[in-house]
């Protein structure tokens, strides 16, 4: 496999609705931004593209990626569509990586979009729930927030995780987003406000859950040769991994933890894994990505993480899957302040603020979750962060970390059925 670099990226402003632009136009906007940011790169250097969007129900247009491909003027270059639920964007990123790593392409565009505003929120929830087993799960009350609520209810039972710890994630991500003009739902919140917002599925309130969005994102990946020629500050993709789990949560095993290099079997002597409290696919994705990147202790070797926080609960569960802390310690991880940004006032006391910022961008909770674009959006924020260009792209320096070395991005599909982890490094 050849080394692969990210050399540019672009995002549209995520919003509840963009009725004035269809998905092709949104992709074009992100794509033009991407090309403008690498003036030495030209369209004829693109060898092909991978498009991602999640739901044919939202689009009501099969082969919509073909329409974006022609709109961008990329025909007759190679193209395909990637779909994998909530992990669609992360899978698209990795598919573009594969194209370059294999030598099949020297540069590949990954574009993703979703237009979720075309139906009302509850119809949208129904569409999304069609990504659960339609014979056995959907008819019982198809609702992802309900599924995740059951998962965290068990997490609370096993490990003592609290709703206040979950609310801290919401406060953190919404406040981070105040400095991210691309975000959809930035605001200053308190733990009390999160808990007092309308209950959706116990214990998850409206402020524990991301919103639906319209938006697009684009990443440009390239070989070493192209990166050196076209980009002043390329970022290297040093590890990719992905994992999966049974579609029906009910069918998940209750066995042994998949260990990371810095863990031992004795750490989890009594834990039945993954059950419904943890995402086995996320652990597998992390293990594979760390292996490729040569990472032995993620907490020590990563500078920041952009992870799939569709729910505050899944952010906490994901700290554990990624091995940022042990299984069961996710709640205390956030309570100590470890995943908060340096230099931002969150209105609460945090003993270990800034050890490993998680979702500096505001994550899905505050940026929005236009599914096919989400995983690529994370890649763009990670790229800018590692390039040191956050200030240029966001218009303010608050979210720029000091000399970040490595960033991890994590994309996640319904109840953990597909999960990707990719690791980017500044060079």
């Amino acid at each position, binding site marked *: 496999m050849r080394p692969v670099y990210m050399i540019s990226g672009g995002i549209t402003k995520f919003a509840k609705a963009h009725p004035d632009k269809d998905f092709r136009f949104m992709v074009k906007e992100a794509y033009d931004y991407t090309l403008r940011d690498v003036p030495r790169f030209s369209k004829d250097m693109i060898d092909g593209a991978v498009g991602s969007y999640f739901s044919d129900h939202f689009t009501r247009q099969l082969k919509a990626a073909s329409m974006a491909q022609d709109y961008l003027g990329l025909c007759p270059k190679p193209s395909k569509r990637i779909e994998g639920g909530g992990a669609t964007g992360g899978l698209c990123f990795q598919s573009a990586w594969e194209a370059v790593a294999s030598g099949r392409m020297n540069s590949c565009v990954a574009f993703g979009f979703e237009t979720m505003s075309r139906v009302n929120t509850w119809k949208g929830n*129904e569409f999304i729930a069609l990504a659960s087993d339609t*014979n056995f799960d959907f008819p*019982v*009350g198809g*609702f992802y927030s309900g599924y995740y609520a*059951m998962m965290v209810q068990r997490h609370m039972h096993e490990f003592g995780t609290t709703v206040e710890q979950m609310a801290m994630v919401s406060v953190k991500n919404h406040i981070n987003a105040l400095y991210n003009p691309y975000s959809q739902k930035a605001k200053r919140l308190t733990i009390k406000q999160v808990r007092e917002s309308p209950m959706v599925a116990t214990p998850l309130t409206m402020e524990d859950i991301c919103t639906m969005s319209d938006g697009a994102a684009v990443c440009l990946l390239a070989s070493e040769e192209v990166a050196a020629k076209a980009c002043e500050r390329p970022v290297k993709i040093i590890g990719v991994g992905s994992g999966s789990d049974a579609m029906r949560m009910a069918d998940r095993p209750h066995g042994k933890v998949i260990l990371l290099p810095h863990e031992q079997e004795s750490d989890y002597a009594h834990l039945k894994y993954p059950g419904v409290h943890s995402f086995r696919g996320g652990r597998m994705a992390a293990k594979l990505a760390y292996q490729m990147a040569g990472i032995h202790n993620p907490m020590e070797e990563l500078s920041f993480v952009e992870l799939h926080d569709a729910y505050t609960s899944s952010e906490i569960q994901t700290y554990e899957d990624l091995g940022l802390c042990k299984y069961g310690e996710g709640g205390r991880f956030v309570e100590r302040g470890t995943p908060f940004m340096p230099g931002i006032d969150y209105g609460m006391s945090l003993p270990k603020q800034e050890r490993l910022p998680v979702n500096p961008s505001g994550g899905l909770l505050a940026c929005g979750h236009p599914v096919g674009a989400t995983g690529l959006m994370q890649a763009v924020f990670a790229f800018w962060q590692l390039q040191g260009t956050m200030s240029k792209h966001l218009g303010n320096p608050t979210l720029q970390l000091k000399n970040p070395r490595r960033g991890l991005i994590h994309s996640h599909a319904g109840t953990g059925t597909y999960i990707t982890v990719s690791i980017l490094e500044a060079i």
Partner: protein
Amino acid sequence: MGEKGTIVYGVDPLIVHDHYEIDYRHSYAEDSPFFVGLSKGKLLGSRCTGCRYTYATPRSHCMECGAPTAWHEVPLSGRIHTFTICHYGGEAFLKETPFTLILVEFEGADTLFLSRLKGVKSEAVRIGMPVRACFSKTPAFKVTDVWFEPADRE
């Protein structure tokens, strides 16, 4: 539909109403006995003929070893493994809110079963609570032909 004219929500950009509906001829295929079983008051799971792994859901081949499974009657009572009370839902279920979803664990089964819990105040629901299966007297041949209620109720 066309004769009724087009509903216009806005003109700049032009936003119109668009309707979409479809009927399927849906086969439960190898899982059919499960749905027939519900109409007879039985909860059919699968037991692997190779490694004996026991599923509380239908699955014709074992996820662990790939061998065929045999039908196996899951006990009609179990315990709540986890739960949630949904105050919102997908559009199709909004009118049923609030409803309680549970994953049920059974003696002798390695996996769980997703269902609704009825007949109990939401404040009283907790993990570990004993529950028993109840079956619809007028089967719709859907997984909702079964639901659970607290085991101590008659």
